């Protein structure tokens, strides 16, 4: 088990049971000994509305990327529906740079189970699935074992802890697709179909897994819930800033001295995060840019990172908190190469359902690869921006946006680097100013 050393500046809530170094996952005995399943026990004594109210108070927002308020999402589930309700955990963790869900499952799997139980109690679900990316074989095994323990101890199954509540949980393996992390594509995949996204509305809260009301949340989101129940929504909320409650997991990677997964309060200053927790840019180099929330989030230049890292502040800075993957680029980073690599990823992962994303990502990937090889043309630079702009907000699901956002920000903020890549290679360039034959 590999985990970075904890840092004193961390606020450890989700990771509070972690040890360093930790040899084995926290199995059920240890979990229960350390207040495990107590949040759930408390929830058993509460009404669904009370549970949802508590989660709303905590101002917990989805940690999967979109940052949707979790309590609100749960309240949308049509509890009066005669159909079964389902809990689905999004453990696809596909966003480049993101590696927090695996750490949570690897160390403290029962915390996730407890989060699911509380959610099930709140929305009236009797069945749930943890959808985990197939590459996480090792983590699937851990979670499977934890689930088996929970069944054995009566935390899962029928008449849980004598309360009369039923809840079944199992893992479901993904087959290697970024798009299957998008919640509706995930549900399709869970149902055994091709992982294409679904038309929305209806949203999963009304029509989700197998046509039934469903809540889909990220692993980290569920893992935050037990302590919210245990200590109260207000307590959790107070850990962060006034509008952005609680703590979050940051995956620090890139050109940094102490890469790793850290838990910090919402609103923790990004610059301090890099310098103090991350130990600063490696090799004594200078900071050039930071990707603050996974490869989909717009890039921030070194001048833009002295801000509190929370949903609102990042939105104000023109980026997003996303999945919490913070990637640090030092002064030597080749921004064209970086974008070319990012676009290669999106072109590879586009499901192909809609035209702008399918064709746009492939086109951009080709232009960027060519530029990176030194065969860029002057007109490419504006075209990259234009193509990304044409994709943005016009695709079927948010993958198109995820590909467009970093592109627009990188090409705009580092235009000089693109200009430097204009090649001397002979390539066909339409004479400047030529008019098309027909103007329609």
């Amino acid at each position: 088990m590999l985990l970075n050393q904890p840092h004193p500046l961390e606020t450890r809530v989700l990771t509070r049971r972690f040890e360093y170094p930790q040899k084995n996952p926290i199995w059920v005995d240890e979990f229960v000994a350390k207040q495990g399943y107590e949040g759930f026990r408390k929830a058993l004594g509460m009404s669904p509305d009370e549970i949802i109210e508590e989660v709303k108070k905590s101002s917990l927002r989805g940690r999967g990327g979109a940052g949707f308020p979790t309590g609100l999402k749960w309240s949308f589930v049509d509890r009066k529906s005669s159909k079964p309700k389902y809990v689905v955990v999004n453990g696809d963790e596909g966003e480049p740079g993101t590696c927090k869900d695996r750490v949570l499952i690897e160390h403290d799997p029962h915390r996730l189970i407890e989060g699911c139980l509380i959610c099930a109690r709140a929305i009236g679900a009797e069945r749930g699935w943890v959808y985990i990316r197939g590459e996480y074989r090792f983590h699937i095994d851990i979670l499977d074992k934890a689930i088996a323990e929970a069944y054995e101890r009566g935390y899962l199954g029928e008449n849980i802890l004598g309360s009369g509540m039923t809840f079944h949980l199992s893992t479901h393996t993904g087959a290697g697709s970024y798009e299957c992390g998008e919640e509706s594509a995930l549900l399709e995949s869970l149902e055994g179909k091709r992982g294409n996204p679904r038309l929305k509305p209806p949203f999963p809260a009304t029509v989700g897994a197998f046509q039934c009301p469903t809540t889909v949340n990220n692993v980290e989101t569920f893992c935050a819930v037990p302590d919210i129940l245990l200590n109260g929504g207000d307590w959790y909320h107070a850990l962060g800033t006034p509008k952005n409650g609680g703590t979050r997991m940051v995956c620090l990677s890139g050109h940094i001295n102490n890469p790793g997964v850290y838990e910090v309060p919402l609103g923790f200053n990004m610059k301090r995060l890099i310098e103090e927790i991350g130990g600063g840019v490696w090799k004594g180099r200078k900071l050039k840019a930071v990707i603050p929330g996974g490869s989909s989030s717009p890039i921030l230049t070194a001048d833009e990172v002295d801000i509190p890292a929370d949903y609102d502040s990042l939105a104000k800075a023109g980026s997003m908190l996303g999945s919490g993957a913070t990637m640090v680029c030092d002064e030597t980073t080749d921004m064209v190469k970086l974008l070319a690599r990012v676009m290669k990823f999106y072109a590879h992962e586009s499901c192909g359902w809609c035209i702008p994303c399918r064709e746009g990502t492939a086109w951009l990937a080709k232009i960027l690869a060519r530029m990176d090889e030194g065969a860029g043309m002057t007109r490419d630079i504006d075209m990259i921006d234009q193509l990304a702009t044409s994709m943005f907000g016009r695709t079927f699901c948010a993958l198109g946006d995820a590909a467009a956002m970093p592109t627009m920000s990188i090409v705009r903020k580092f235009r000089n680097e693109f200009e430097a890549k204009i090649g001397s290679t002979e390539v066909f360039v339409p004479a400047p100013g030529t008019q098309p034959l027909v103007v329609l």
Partner: protein
Amino acid sequence: MAELVTLTIDGKQITAEKGTLVIEAAKKIGIEIPAFCYYEGYSLQAACRMCLVEVEKMPKLQPGCTLPAAEGMVVMTDSPKVVEARKSTLEFLLTNHPLDCPVCDKGGECELQDMVFRYGAGESRFTEIKHHANEKQWSPMVYYDPARCILCYRCIRVCDEGLGVGALGLTHRGVHAEITPSNGDHLECDECGMCIDICPVGALTSGSYRYKSRPWEMNHVGTICAHCSNGCKTTLSIRNGEIMRANNRDQSGINGEFLCAKGRFGYDFVHSEERLQTPLVRKDGELVEASWSEALALVAKKFGDVKAKGGKFGVVGSARTTNEEAYYLQKFARQGLGTANIDHRRSGDVASLLNALAGKRDALATVADLYTTKAALVIGSDLSQQHPLLAFQLRANYRHHGSSTYTVTRGPVREDSYAARSIRFEAGDEIGALDQLREDLSKHASVVILFGDSVKGGDVAKLVAFGDSLGVGVKYVCLMDYSNSRGAWDMGLTHEYGPGYEAAEQRGLSLPEMLAAKDLDVFWAVGANPLADAELGSNDAFVVVQELFLTETARRADVVLPAASAYEKNGTVTNTCGEVQRLKAGAKVMGVKTDLEIMGLLAKEMGLDLGIWTPEKVFEEIRRTVRGYNVQLPIIVTGGAAPTQPVSGQLAVLPDVSLVRSAEDTLFTSGSLGRYSKMLNAAMEAPGKLYKE
């Protein structure tokens, strides 16, 4: 009545039912919102993004194909933002499109070409290498060129939702995504070609048409399919008299866009090298070529001699010739030859149905009724195989209106997959089985009952009594085999009835009786092949056959007269629902004559006065004299389907129901005709099987 909302589209106010899709609301006021993946009647995809429109107070452009109209909504379909978005979507689409329009089958009638012409940019900025994947043959009927595919998923939906076959799916992702047969590399399906037809571009091409012609080189002639009794309108595309393809490009008929494998590909028998193109006359025991005048004179002489000596005729008509030809044939036989021995091979007992209905109005269902009825009961037919259009209509009704279908069949049928209830019966038991459905059926406001050849005679009466007992509006369809099976009955091609089910003055020999008779002098088969599975009892009979091919019957003939097929003649046919539709000559085959012309010339040669023998004149006579056929001429002339009325009152005589038997054709067989279609025989599924497990 649903709630109404008022919205504004491009400055025009429109009132629409709440929830109407903006793309449909716009269409109502003549505003086109372009789209590839949106296709009325099939599930929504919102995939192509061509229909993005600007909506006031919404920051992002919205897909018009999924956006429900709401009160006060202000939509702009032509704002600079929308125009720019369309241009860019088309630019994206063309990046990997091969642009091989000069050789593409679809060139000239391609939706992508039209869209780019109307909404696209004049310039392409794409200078990278295109992604390419090679073309594949999926079946003799269907080819797929992934490079041309724009991934609109229409083919997947029409196959799955429309046909209930589900032979197509999607594999790979991103630009590599392509349509793939569900079972890997080839199709095992209905081979209907609906996927080819619905494809907006040239990605799916037809095995019989591909790379053969440019659309603008052909004349397009709307006529009725020559095969089954459903009576689909088909548009023949003709170049120099040759049929290049068949589809229903203008979606004008009772079948809308639907055609099955027979309608779409089974026209090739017309140009088969086995077509007879000169008359044949038996000389020294051999059939040898002869001129029309020689052959006609020989037949006229023989007919005249036998008539004069009071000899015995046997006349067999066809379930495929036109109403005019059937009517003229029985007139020729009864008035011209003075014989009562006339019959055809019957495949459904419509006489007993008309008798049981005794003139009740609105009791015969039309093809359109199958799309609107609240419930349908299918008895004794594998509808998807034997009556593909009717099956398509019922499925569409279920999909769009949630109608209920009940099946009572001897084996599993495709309709079971969505049927409200399915009952299996042992032969002869079907009427008994109905009691189980009485309660279910009487819950629906309207019911259409379709029955196959196993329900006949007294059982039909029982069935109608059952229908009456439901206490709801019940309509019936008597299922029959071929394009004019119904018309053959109506026109009096039976030994017990004259035209309009008037009792024949004298009851002559039935078809089996003619075949068995040892003393027949003349046996005359017009478009029929009764010797395919029987022997002619009379060794000395002079056999005259009007045929397209040298069938078993033609081989036994003394004179064979080469006849035109349905695609080469004008006239009318009546489908299994009793709707009359017009045939229009499209193809030309050298040396042949229509059966009507052949009979007219024979009558002239014999000096008989049977009236003018042009299709128009004979149809006029039919409208005047045949009960139920006083149909509205404008409907027929404009290519519509005019329902016949049931004859009033009970019939004076009851039909001989022992003669009713369906040939049980599948999707890939069509009696003797099907044998001469290379395409149908090439289908891997041919000849197929009814009631598949």
